[in-house]
């Protein structure tokens, strides 16, 4: 459905996208991951025809975004990152306008407005000015305008940024419901979000593809180890010796102790992922007479996953290909 080939985009001296290649299959929800400034938005803007690539090509539903811009754009619904809406319009008026701008005739546009308002749960706000809506509702209006005219492809740039946890869950389930019927590219820099919503992920950094595959690619226990944070009351030097001596424990690093908890020593370490290993570790600390205060798995940041992904491959080719059949649930 979406094909990106050798895509490059240069802004002056800065290469924002550098030879990107990926494909998205029909009905697939693709997570597009990367830290801020990785080139996600640039790639999405090329796909939606805001600007053309410097070289390479991108096509949507078989239409090249440069050669057949209107046909390609007809197939796409787009939600930009900061959700730029006409805030002085009422929700219904705005969606009617979008319908017209997407080429629908009056009655058809009004029918679409009704449909997308129901699909995104904003029907009861139809008469309200967009500037009076909360961030969550604006995001829904943004999603609604992308859905107008029922395009087969949705491109959503950070659709849950700035929302509260309840709104995030709602927007995610809206997107998840589209699996199968729509092809979705969803950008994010939040790992759990992508793991929860997407069937496949593409990770980019500095405009280059770092890895692509199922969301399990992002799981920290890839090597069969958990990273843990351990805090205990006791002598730091003795605790360090104890931890180093405990079987199955490695990579022990002392961390700065929290200022408001004097006497607590904090370490980060890796331990085998089995629950028994963690239990044994806790027992060892308690048996030594030190008071166990905290033992928590550390969620990996995206940057750490990058480092892991890049360093785990042979240095020359930092691209991890972990192809999995579409639809496989990597739970």
């Amino acid at each position: 459905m979406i094909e990106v080939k050798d895509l490059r985009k240069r802004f002056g001296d800065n290469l924002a996208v550098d030879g990107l290649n990926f494909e998205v299959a029909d009905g697939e929800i693709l997570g597009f991951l990367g830290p801020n400034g990785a080139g996600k938005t640039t790639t999405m803007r090329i796909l939606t025809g805001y600007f053309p690539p410097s070289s390479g090509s991108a096509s949507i539903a078989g239409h090249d975004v440069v050669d057949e811009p209107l046909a390609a754009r007809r197939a796409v619904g787009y939600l930009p990152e900061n959700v730029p809406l006409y805030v002085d319009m009422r929700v219904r008026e705005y969606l009617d306008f979008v319908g017209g701008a997407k080429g629908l005739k009056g009655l058809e546009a009004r029918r679409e407005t009704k449909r997308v308002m129901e699909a995104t749960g904003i029907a009861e706000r139809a008469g309200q000015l967009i500037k009076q809506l909360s961030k969550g509702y604006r995001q829904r209006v943004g999603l609604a305008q992308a859905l107008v005219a029922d395009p087969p492809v949705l491109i959503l740039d950070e659709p849950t940024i700035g929302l509260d946890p309840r709104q995030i869950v709602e927007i995610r389930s809206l997107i998840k419901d589209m699996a199968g019927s729509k092809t979705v590219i969803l950008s994010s820099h939040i790992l759990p979000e992508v793991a929860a919503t997407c069937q496949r992920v593409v990770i980019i950094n500095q405009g280059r593809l770092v890895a692509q595959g199922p969301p399990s690619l992002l799981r920290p226990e890839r090597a069969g180890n958990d990273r843990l944070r351990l805090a205990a009351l006791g002598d730091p030097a003795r605790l360090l010796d104890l931890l180093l001596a405990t079987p199955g424990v490695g990579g022990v690093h002392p961390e700065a102790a929290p200022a408001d908890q004097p006497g607590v020593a904090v370490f980060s370490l890796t331990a085998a992922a089995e629950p028994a290993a963690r239990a044994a570790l806790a027992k060892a600390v308690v048996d030594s007479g030190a008071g166990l205060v905290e033992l928590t798995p550390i969620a990996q940041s995206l940057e750490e996953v990058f480092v892991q992904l890049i360093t785990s491959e042979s240095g020359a080719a930092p691209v991890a290909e972990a192809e999995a059949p579409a639809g496989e649930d990597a739970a």
Partner: protein
Amino acid sequence: MSALTAIYRKEMRAYFCSPIAYVLWTCFVALTGYFFYTGLLYYSMASMQAMQQPWGATLNLQEMLMAPLMSNWSVMLMLISPLLTMRLLSEEKRSGTIELLLSYPLSDASVVLGKFLAALSMFALILLPTLAQVAILFWLGQPHLPAILAGYLGLLFMGAAFIALGLLASALTENQIVSGVLAFVALLMLWVVGWSGNLVGGSLGEALKALALGPHFEGFPKGLIDTADVAYFILFIGFFLFVTIRTLEAKRWKA
């Protein structure tokens, strides 16, 4: 086509949902009303005096009242037009809505034309209350209708020219004020560039005079529709709309 209509409707709505339309309207009506009143008084005084002269009764309502009035209006409209156009594209750029607008399957031309036609409609609506003054003239005397219609045609041509240029200024910047000032200065320059024609002299002087906006309008309120003037306005409008569309396209390529 429906995309153009959608843009047109949105812009018309924006004019009426902001105070701009009402403020401009009120000010224009007040100013033109004042000019009409003084013009009418002056004309009636002049005609009283003329009646006492043996060579009197050659006063012409169109030439002595309507033409100078319309000439006044044209200057006022030159001041007003940048206020109508300055928001059109620069605001879309500033707020980022242009990104979404350009992701829809519509041509850049329909965006520009939709906005142009909306601003032109607003211009015509601002001009509309002056018809009351024309009605008063018909009640008081016998003005020459075809000449008045020609005058309005000229005003519309000129308004379209102002707006086409203002739209380009709006496409060049994301700051409304900059866009407004740019349009105003450019219009003023084009208005007065002919004045230096006689000083410069020669073919360059003639070219400057031909380039100026004002002289091309002067014929219309006198009831004179010159093909050269009509061609000037159509070329002027076409040129600036074309460059605006190209500027929008160039933004896509550079952005």
